[in-house]
């Protein structure tokens, strides 16, 4: 039988979304949905899985909510229970469910919530991850994460953060906020900012799932498709990015047969589809850059041109640094180094890491070793640090490197 856990992951977010509209409260919705899953765990093994497990969960959650409101038995609660009973007991129409799922996403990603709370709420309510899983993924104690979630939900309720898809005028801004949350989940999964492993597969998978969900809900937004394409293309190289011994493998040295061809194809198709809309945005351009990398040998001139565009759309020192890397491939390491040296990116390990690599290629070993040292001191991820230390050994006279 399809186990309850699979149904849980599949339908938790939809059920919470629908119940939040019915109950007008995220907390009560979660409670009702959890009650329904508890009932499922008790019943399904004997009674068999109902024909529409997701629909069963919603109906049961609604009934549990009515029971609970009746038990609490204040006047207000009775009114609400009565109002709930008038909601037709039939599977809600798919379009309405879609609206509910979008509302829930926009509520979780509301700008009045702290960024860390937006991420946690989205993973919890939309993604159906447990508090323990989210805490583990972000390396914070479970109690801390639980408190973060309680506080965020408390603010949603007390300050009345609306359960609504923003008006047309606010939509681009608010959508950027939602996309940023999904991107943040992926980035944290892709290169964990701290801890031993390079990749947290669970977070990457969750970000891709959220990205797919968003693309399904807002198929006409080019940036939504762009973000999904970006995630899929980066994700397609995951297996090749870390060696069997756990070492970081740079793109140029990766075994391409280990790339996920289906994800590459899907990502490239998405890039073509969104760029056809003629409304390029930062995620689409980043996806286009990844699409170029996915089609080796990399056409570095095209990558530079795309970084020029990205720098115009969303200027940032990190983008400028990546552009410098591409320029080094086209015009040589000295040209790249000149650009890097003009950048100001304090406390970020990538700048000294890129400098070190360019200096190494220019044969300026002593300076390269010093730059690797600076990068190592700033890198929070153990796998990245190990990679940088290996490279430093190669340029250090005592390291005996042959590079």
């Amino acid at each position, binding site marked *: 039988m399809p186990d309850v856990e699979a149904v849980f992951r599949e339908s938790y977010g939809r059920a919470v979304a629908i119940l939040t509209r019915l109950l007008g409260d995220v907390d009560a919705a979660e409670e009702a949905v959890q009650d329904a899953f508890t009932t499922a765990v008790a019943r399904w093994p004997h009674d068999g899985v109902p024909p529409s497990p997701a629909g069963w969960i919603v109906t049961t959650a609604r009934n549990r909510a009515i029971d609970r409101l009746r038990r609490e038995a204040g006047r207000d609660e009775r009114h609400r229970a009565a109002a709930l009973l008038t909601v037709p007991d039939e599977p809600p129409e798919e379009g309405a469910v879609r609206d509910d799922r979008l509302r829930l996403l926009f509520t979780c990603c509301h700008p*009045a919530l702290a960024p860390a709370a937006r991420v946690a709420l989205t993973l919890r309510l939309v993604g159906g991850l447990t508090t323990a899983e989210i805490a583990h993924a972000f390396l914070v104690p479970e109690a801390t994460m639980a408190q973060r979630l309680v506080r965020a939900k408390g603010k949603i309720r007390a300050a009345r953060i609306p359960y609504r898809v923003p008006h047309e005028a606010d939509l681009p801004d608010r959508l950027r906020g939602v996309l940023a949350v999904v991107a943040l989940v992926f980035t944290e999964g892709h290169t964990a900012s701290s801890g031993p492993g390079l990749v947290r597969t669970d977070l990457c998978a969750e970000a891709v799932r959220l990205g797919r969900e968003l693309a399904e809900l807002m198929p006409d937004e080019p940036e939504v498709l762009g973000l999904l394409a970006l995630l899929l293309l980066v994700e397609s190289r995951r297996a090749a990015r870390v060696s069997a011994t756990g070492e970081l493998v740079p793109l140029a040295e990766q075994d391409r047969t280990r790339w996920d061809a289906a994800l590459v194809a899907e990502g490239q198709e998405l890039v073509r589809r969104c760029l056809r809309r003629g409304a390029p945005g930062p995620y689409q351009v980043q996806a286009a850059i990844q699409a170029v990398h996915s089609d080796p040998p990399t056409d570095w001139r095209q990558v530079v041109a795309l970084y020029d565009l990205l720098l115009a759309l969303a200027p940032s020192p990190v983008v400028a640094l990546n552009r410098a890397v591409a320029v080094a491939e086209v015009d040589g390491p000295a040209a790249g180094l000149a650009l890097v040296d003009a950048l100001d990116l304090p406390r970020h390990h990538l700048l000294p890491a890129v400098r070190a690599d360019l200096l190494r290629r220019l044969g300026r070993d002593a300076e390269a070793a010093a730059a690797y040292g600076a990068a190592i001191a700033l890198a929070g991820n153990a796998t990245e640090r190990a990679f940088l230390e290996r490279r430093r050994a190669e340029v250090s006279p005592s390291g005996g490197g042959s590079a």
Partner: protein
Amino acid sequence: MPQYLLSLQQPDGDPPPPEVLDPIMRDLAAVSADMRAAGAWVFTAALHPADTATVLRPDGDDVLVVDGPYAEGKEHVGGFTVVEAPDLDAALEWGRRMARASTLPVEVRPVAGGGV
């Protein structure tokens, strides 16, 4: 209808010269007029500088009187408005207009049990 407190966070010290302050006061009055016209306005107060404040501190059976303000810092609440708004987005929109008009940060905080 829920109510929200919109408080202006004002830097301590002398107010800006009239040529700066006058247009600000005019813009704030315009926001306030719009709040009234929209039926959102509940109450407004402008406050004297924070160094005119006095703090009362319970101390056993006694209450101590201390020269204020209560909170340390370089900014203090300089004035506030209470508005009625259906949800946070609507309250934030009023707050946004107050921040633009006053050129100062505005804190938006829901009133507990605000409105009936």
